[in-house]
C-alpha cells in the first residue's frame, strides 16, 4: 500500500462544495477541504479570503448556502457550536473566552461540570484537569486563577478546554497573533504533540513561516475561492505567498541610509500612573532623520502610554521630550502636532477616527487647517473632498463613496485611511502605532513601503508594534520595552528573534 492510499483511508473530515453568500457577496465560493487523521492543515489566505467564514461553518456558527460537511463518512448538519462540540469539533478562539476570576479548572470544565449530587464537584474537576494536563504535557495548575496569567498560559487553558470536550478536530484561529516568540515556539510544539496523539488540527493563519514549520499541508484561499492544496514538503514561503496574494511580492532589501541628526529626543521620561509601579520608568531614547526606530514589546509594557505622552494626549510626571530641538513635553496635542509630529494611533476608532463622521471628514482631520484647505475658519469643501478622494485612491481604501460613514469601512480599510492621513501630514516625525493591525498582506506591504519612503526622504519614524516581523523588517534600530523601561537596543545588523523575545520577556542581553 502506498503512502497515498494509507492517507485516503484516514480521512476524518471533508467539506464539499461549500458556498456561503452574504447578500450578493460570496464569502466562500465552492470550497473543498479535506482533513486527515493526525495531520496539521494550514488554511491560509489574506483578510477577507473567507477562511474565518469557512471555519465558522465547520464550527456550526454559520450555515452554508450550499455544500455539505462529511465527518467520518457521515453527513453532518450543524446548527450550533454546541452541536459541533458534541461531534468532536473544537475551536481555540482568537479572542480568549475565559472567566478571569475563576480558576483554571473551573474554566476548563465549564458547560460540562462534574457533579456530586446537587453540588458542583470541584475536586473531581481539579483531578480531571490535572490528569489531562499530564496526558498532553500542558503544564497548568488547576487551582490557579486566570486573572494575571500571561497570554500564553491563557491560550493553554483554551486548548485544554477543547481537549476536555474530547475534540478530535481542533481549529486554531490565528493562534499566534498575540504571543511572544517563545510562546509561539511552545504552541507549535504543542500542536505537533497533539497531532501525534491523533488529533487532527486546522490552523488558520497568514504567518507563513509558522505554516512551514508546523503544518503538513496547506490550503490556500483567495477572495472566497479555493486556490490550491499543497504539501508543505513540496512548497516554499515564496510560492505560498504568491498563491495567497495572487502576485509575486518583491522581497526588497531595504538599503540603509546614514542616520542624520536627532528629530525626537526623549530624556529620563517618567510616568507614575495610578499604581505604585511606574508605567514609564526613566526612559530615554532618540530617533534620527532617515531612521525607522522600532519599539518591540509585549503589549502592556508602557508602549501605549509612551505614544500618548509623546503626542500630548497624556501628561507625564517628569523628563524632557524634544522634537527638532523644540520642547514638547506635556504640551497640548495641537502644539505637538504643529511642531512636526503625526501619529497613527493604535486604536483606530478610539483615537484615530470618528465612526459617525464621513470618510472624507476622517481623511481631512488634522489637514483642514492648512491655508490651502480653509481660510478664517471656513472650509473649502470641494478642495477638501478632492484631497480626501486622493488619499482614498492612493492608499486603495475600498469604498464606493467617500461621503459614507467611516464606520462603514472594514477595519483594514479604516486603518489604511488613517495611515494615509497621518503619513501625508509630511511631518518630520511620524509615530506609527500598530500601523498595519488588521490589514491584509497587500495593504501591509503598501503601508510598509510608504513608511520606508518617508524615512528615505529624510524623516524620522517611530514604529510601535507588537508584530515582531514588522518591527524586524522595517526598523533600522530597535528598542525593546519592558516594564516601562528600555530593556535593550538592537540595530538592523545585529538583531535576531531569539534575543528580542528574551528581552521582551524581561530577560537581559548577555
Amino acid at each position, binding site marked *: 500500500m502506498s503512502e497515498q492510499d494509507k492517507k485516503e483511508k484516514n480521512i476524518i473530515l471533508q467539506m464539499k462544495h461549500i458556498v456561503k453568500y452574504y447578500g450578493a457577496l460570496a464569502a466562500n465560493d465552492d470550497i473543498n477541504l479535506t482533513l486527515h487523521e493526525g495531520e496539521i492543515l494550514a488554511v491560509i489566505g489574506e483578510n477577507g479570503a473567507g477562511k474565518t467564514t469557512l471555519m465558522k461553518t465547520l464550527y456550526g456558527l454559520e450555515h452554508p448556502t450550499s455544500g455539505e460537511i462529511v465527518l467520518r463518512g457521515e453527513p453532518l448538519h450543524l446548527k450550533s457550536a454546541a452541536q459541533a462540540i458534541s461531534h468532536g469539533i473544537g475551536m481555540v478562539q482568537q479572542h480568549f473566552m*475565559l*472567566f478571569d476570576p*475563576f480558576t483554571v479548572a*473551573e474554566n476548563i470544565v465549564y*458547560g460540562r461540570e462534574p457533579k456530586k449530587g*446537587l453540588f*458542583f464537584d470541584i475536586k473531581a474537576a481539579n483531578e480531571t484537569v490535572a490528569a489531562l494536563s499530564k496526558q498532553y504535557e500542558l503544564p497548568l495548575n488547576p487551582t490557579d486563577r486566570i486573572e494575571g496569567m500571561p497570554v500564553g498560559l491563557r491560550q493553554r487553558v483554551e486548548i485544554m478546554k477543547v481537549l476536555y470536550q474530547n475534540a478530535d478536530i481542533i481549529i486554531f484561529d490565528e493562534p499566534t497573533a498575540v504571543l511572544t516568540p517563545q510562546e509561539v515556539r511552545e504552541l507549535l510544539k504543542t500542536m505537533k504533540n497533539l497531532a501525534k496523539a491523533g488529533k487532527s488540527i486546522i490552523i488558520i493563519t497568514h504567518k507563513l513561516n509558522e505554516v512551514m514549520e508546523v503544518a503538513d499541508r496547506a490550503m490556500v484561499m483567495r477572495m472566497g475561492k479555493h486556490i490550491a492544496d499543497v504539501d508543505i514538503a513540496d512548497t516554499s514561503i515564496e510560492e505560498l505567498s504568491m498563491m495567497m496574494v495572487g502576485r509575486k511580492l518583491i522581497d526588497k532589501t531595504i538599503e540603509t541610509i546614514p542616520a542624520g541628526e536627532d528629530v525626537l529626543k526623549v530624556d529620563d521620561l517618567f510616568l507614575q500612573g*495610578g*499604581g505604585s*509601579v511606574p508605567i514609564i520608568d526613566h526612559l530615554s531614547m532618540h530617533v534620527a532623520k532617515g531612521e525607522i526606530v522600532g519599539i518591540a514589546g509585549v503589549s502592556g509594557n508602557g508602549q501605549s502610554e509612551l505614544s500618548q505622552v509623546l503626542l500630548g494626549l497624556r501628561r507625564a510626571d517628569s523628563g524632557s521630550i524634544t522634537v527638532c530641538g523644540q520642547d514638547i513635553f506635556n504640551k497640548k496635542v495641537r502644539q505637538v502636532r504643529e511642531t512636526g509630529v503625526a501619529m497613527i494611533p493604535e486604536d483606530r476608532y478610539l483615537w484615530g477616527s470618528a465612526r459617525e463622521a464621513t470618510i472624507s471628514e476622517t481623511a481631512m482631520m488634522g489637514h483642514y487647517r492648512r491655508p490651502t484647505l480653509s481660510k478664517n475658519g471656513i472650509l473649502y469643501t470641494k478642495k477638501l473632498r478632492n484631497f480626501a478622494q486622493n488619499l482614498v485612491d492612493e492608499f486603495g481604501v475600498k469604498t464606493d463613496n467617500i461621503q459614507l460613514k467611516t464606520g462603514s469601512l472594514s477595519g483594514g480599510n479604516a486603518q489604511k485611511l488613517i495611515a494615509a492621513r497621518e503619513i501625508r501630514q509630511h511631518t518630520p516625525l511620524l509615530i506609527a502605532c500598530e500601523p498595519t493591525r488588521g490589514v491584509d498582506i497587500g495593504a501591509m506591504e503598501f503601508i510598509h513601503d510608504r513608511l520606508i519612503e518617508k524615512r528615505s526622504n529624510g524623516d524620522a519614524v517611530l514604529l510601535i508594534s507588537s508584530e515582531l516581523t514588522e518591527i524586524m523588517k522595517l526598523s533600522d534600530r530597535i528598542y525593546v520595552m519592558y516594564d516601562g523601561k528600555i530593556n535593550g537596543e538592537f540595530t538592523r545588523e545585529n538583531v535576531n528573534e531569539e534575543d528580542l523575545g528574551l528581552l521582551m520577556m524581561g530577560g537581559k542581553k548577555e
Partner: protein
Amino acid sequence: MNIDANYLAVVFNSTIRMTTPILFVALGSALCNRVFIFNIGLEGMMLTGAFAAIVANFYTHSVLASIVAAMVASMLVAWVAGIFMVKFKGAMLVVGVSINTLMGGLTTFLMQLVFHVQGAYVSSDLVSLPKINVNFLGNSHVLKTMFGSLTWLDLFAFVAAILLYFHLFRTVTGFRMRSVGINKPAAESLGIKADRIQILTVVFSGLLSGLGGCLLSMGGVTMFAQNMTAGRGFIAMAAATLGAANPLGVVVSSAFFGFAQSMANMLQNSSISSQLTMALPYFATVVALAIFNYVKIRNKRRQLSA
C-alpha cells in the same frame, strides 16, 4: 430612656423585623448583580408584592394565597422588566425607573378601585402572617422579647440567604449564573443560554421582592399604604452592594440597615425632630456606601502597590 437588657432586646427584635423585608429584596438584588443586571426596579417589585398580598388577603382571607399572590405578581412585573432589559436590550436604568414609577402609580390607582380608600387601607378583616410561638424559649422575658412577634417568613429570609449562598457557590447552576455576570460572550460561546439565565434571575429577584413586600404589608400591622416601601428597594440595592453580592454578606449589611431603621423608629419617641430621625436609614445608606467604596479603592491601591 434607660438602656437595660429589656431595652436592648426590644431593639434587637425591632431590628430583625426591619431587616427581613430588606433582606429578601437585597438577596434578589445580589443575584441580579451576579448576572450583571442592574435591577433598579426592585422597589416597584417590592411594592407590587406588598399590594398583591393585601388584595389577595382582602378577597380570600388566606395567608397562603396572599403569599402566593405577592410572589406571582412581583414575578410577572420582574418578567416584563427582564424581557425589556435582556431581550430588547433596554437601558437598565430606564426600565427600572419606569417599573418603579408605573407600579407606584398603578398600586395607588388600584387601591382606590379595589378598597375605595385613599392613602392607606387597614381592616380588621385582614389576616396577618402567623407568628412563631416563642414559648419553647422558656421563661426568660428577655429572650421572649428578642424573638417574639416574628413570623415564619422572617425566619425564612435567613434560610433563603443560606440556601442562596450554597446555590451560588456550590452548585453548577450557581456557577453558571456567576459566569454570565463575569463574561457573557464567553458563556454564550460555550453553549450556555445566557439571556435566559439573566431573565430567570430577574424573575427570581421578583419572587424575593414579592416576599419582602408581603412581609412589609402583612408582617406587623396588616395594611397597605400608598408607596409603603418608601425606598426600601433602593436601600436593599445598597445592602446588596455592601454585602459584595454574597448572600451571607448581604445578611450582615441588611441587618445594618434594619438597625438604622429600627433606631429611626425608636428615636421617634425622643425629643429629636421626627423628620431628622426618619432620615436616619437613608443617611446611613449614603455613609455606608461612601465608606464601602473608599475602602474598596484603598484596597485596590494597596493591591497594586503590593
